[in-house]
């Protein structure tokens, strides 16, 4: 049987969810035996080719995030929204209480000890969205794996059940939002 292909990616997240995948520790060696990683923390990336499973960390905060997310959806049979940022927007979405202008001005205009205060606006940097969105507002998601980040044990249970075709059932202690 050919190995299933898995890809992962980080949008507006902190990379903590990816760190939790690395927290599989020795199980990483088992995992690379079970699946072929397309884009992943542990092997070289292959083409953003067609994958069986795609795992997304982080919400959508700029135009580039939207583009990447759509690419992933188009290339993955099963798409998983991992962690609070992807599922709810998470901490980055705390900026939604303010206008984007207010946020930019606080960082680049009114901060203390600034020289050449200005809002960066070069065409080289991607356009920010006025609000940070959870990813299911942009594309269809097949599974949500909550946590900030989900624990390595939860990720392991989830992946092994998914890969063996069982229904997903996280135990009471693994299903957490913190």
């Amino acid at each position: 049987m050919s190995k299933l292909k898995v890809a992962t990616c980080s949008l507006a997240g902190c990379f903590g969810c990816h760190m939790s995948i690395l927290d599989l520790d020795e199980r990483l060696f088992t995992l690379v035996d079970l699946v072929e990683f397309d884009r992943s923390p542990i092997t070289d990336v292959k083409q953003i080719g067609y994958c069986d499973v795609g795992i997304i960390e982080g919400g959508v905060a700029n135009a580039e995030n939207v583009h990447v997310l759509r690419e992933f959806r188009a290339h993955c049979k099963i798409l998983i929204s991992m962690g609070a940022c992807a599922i709810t927007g998470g901490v980055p979405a705390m900026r939604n209480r303010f206008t984007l202008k207010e946020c930019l001005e606080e960082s680049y205009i009114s901060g203390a000890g600034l020289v050449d205060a200005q809002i960066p606006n070069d065409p080289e940097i991607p356009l920010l969205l006025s609000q940070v969105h959870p990813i299911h507002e942009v594309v269809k998601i097949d599974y949500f794996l909550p946590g900030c980040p989900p624990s390595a044990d939860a990720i392991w249970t989830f992946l092994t059940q998914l890969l063996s075709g069982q229904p997903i059932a996280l135990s009471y202690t693994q299903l957490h939002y913190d």
Partner: protein
Amino acid sequence: MNTLETVAESETLQRIAIDPISRVEGHGKVTLLLDENHHIRQARLHIVEFRGFEKFIQGRPYWELPIVVQRLCGICPVSHHLAAAKAIDQLVGARELTPTAEKIRRLLHLGQTLQSHAVHFFHLASPDFLFDFDDPVAHRNIAGVMADYPDIARQGVLLRKYGQEVIRVISGKRVHGVATVPGGVNKALTTAERDYLLTDLDQMIEWTQEVIKLMRQAFERNPAYFTYFATIRSNYLSLVRADGALDLYHGGLRAKNRRGGMIFDHLDYQRSFQVIHEQVKSWSYMKFPFIHSLGPDKGWYRVGPLARINNCDFIPTPLAEEERRQFMAMGQGQLIHATLAYHWARMIELLYSAEAIKELLHDPDILGGELVVRGEMAQEGIGVVEAPRGTLFHHYRINEDGLIEKANLIVSTTNNNQAMNESIRQVAERYLDGKELTEPLLNQIEVAVRAYDPCLSCATHALGQMPLYVELVDEESGAIVDCLVRDADGTFRNRL
């Protein structure tokens, strides 16, 4: 400052965007502008990410900070947790923590440094040292290491695991746990927890020594490359202990100039923002900090492992101190400016962290005692730590209801912003200028950036090798003159 930062006649030049993370991450990219003779006229590293933390934290209660702010970075969350906690200690008037609280926090921080340095070296950078520089691109990655050097890959995984276990035991979780409370910590260690952490520690120390040996051999094999590649002569900034020792958790600010002279020393970090200012540039979301008295052109500096080893007078653990001496001997009395020496310095700190963890685990204070002190509330607090990637500043002001009014952060990678830009310009000038576009040339820019272990490189390289897509565009007609694509399997092709 290098002259390649801004070119006047940019419209007439060809643009090359090295965007290794274009379709995946979106955290950073490099652009080059070239004239018709392939001379590089402008080179810039752009940071394309913006969070707005300084605004959205306003109006929140101060005690939420360590929990919220660590979610800016999942790779070194403990550093943010601790920098915020130290600022909050000021707010709640905890002038001096209890021995137990201070030592538990230190232990946590060392666990963090150990795991972060291990990830960077083993998972991201080790292929550069284990394989020759002309090793096939497709093989020059962690998968190649797992296949060819399974023992080293295993050591990397287990070293990181060890650091993460220190963090979990203290803070309850490996990523985004909670250990601090205003004025202290929420628990001490049990003897069972201490014994558990002592079990594998000697093995970890042994492995870190082997890695340093590996690093030294790499330098000895190719001294010219390691000495000059991406090298810039810069100022250095870090915390040092009162007696001049390396200290990652606490101390005064020390800045040295490129000749090793002191710019300031043992400066109380509550005065940080009097000496460090930031410049904004239109083309990056990351600001450019500099030492105020020297101005933006001369006042930029480097932080992180290389800065700390250059700045400290000694390392307070014996094995790492011996390694520091050997490392500094390279400079024959001068500071070490080699950018690739960051890797070596980082591994010396890996050893220091493991040794210092051992000392603390044998200290009875970590097993119990008073956990929290409180004093008179203040409205302003600054917390500074040496995060794995360098000096990290948190500054908060609260109102009389305890809600945050003003927040200002300078994160470690930001401190290296100008330096990373200077390093890629050095590479552009020295190794790329006047040449045709080829894979190894562009790859060298990535190698330069990676030495700093910036968060954007973590993002890029932790995900494995990104497809790389370089376009040469005729500015006038907008037509694509040339286009180089690095496929996922590492092969390069010309798309035109």
